[in-house]
């Protein structure tokens, strides 16, 4: 169950989606908008996606996670648009019979999501400038 949304993410809803009498373990990961990055103050974020492809990639990650671990349920929600500091950018919830699978799958899903899913973050700095974040591109290249 994967979703892109322009509205605030409700972590309780993500948990509710994966809880089950067959699961002994639930792991929820939340990525939240931090006030400062590498010592620099952020005032807000903006997320952009290629939505059709992001949905496909998220579904593929969920399928792969279910293949690798014996998950009971799996839910991923990613925020798009304008995000204030402290708000939730992404929620990944997984459930499994035992805790090791839930921890491993949760960690793997966020690592892979950051590597492959076509979603981009723009940092709106407190000084008024903005930068698209593109890991591996040169600093000058990403200044927007």
């Amino acid at each position, binding site marked *: 169950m994967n979703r892109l949304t322009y509205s605030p993410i409700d972590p309780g809803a993500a948990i509710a989606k994966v809880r089950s009498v067959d699961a002994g373990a639930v792991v929820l990961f939340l*990525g939240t908008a931090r006030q400062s990055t590498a010592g620099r103050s952020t005032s807000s974020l903006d*997320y*952009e*996606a*290629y939505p*059709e*492809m*992001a949905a*496909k990639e998220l579904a593929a990650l969920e399928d792969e996670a279910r293949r690798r671990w014996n998950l009971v349920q799996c839910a991923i929600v*990613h925020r798009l648009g304008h995000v204030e500091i402290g708000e939730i*950018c*992404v929620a990944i919830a997984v459930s499994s019979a035992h805790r090791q699978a839930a921890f491993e799958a949760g960690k793997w899903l*966020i690592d892979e*999501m*950051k*590597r*492959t*899913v*076509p*979603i*981009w*973050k*723009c940092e709106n700095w407190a000084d008024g400038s903005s930068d*698209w*974040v*593109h*890991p*591996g*591109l040169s600093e000058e*290249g*990403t200044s*927007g």
Partner: protein
Amino acid sequence: MIVRVRLFAIARHLAERGLWETTLPDQATIAALRRQLEREIPALAGLANRFRFAIDARYAGDCEQIPPGADVACIPPVSGG
């Protein structure tokens, strides 16, 4: 053939548009599209070799041919999460 390419994030920002339309020979590859991007949008020339491309919402390798009418997208390094 006419190829329509969606641009995102830094690519959209520097190209100052979200959709780039270009003309390529039939059966042109992603590699040819990448070279065309460098020529037609000089602001992206230094970055284009770090971009990935997608055909019909799936990552496509450099040797892949672009089918006529395909939904093509330029994918700068992603930063979700």
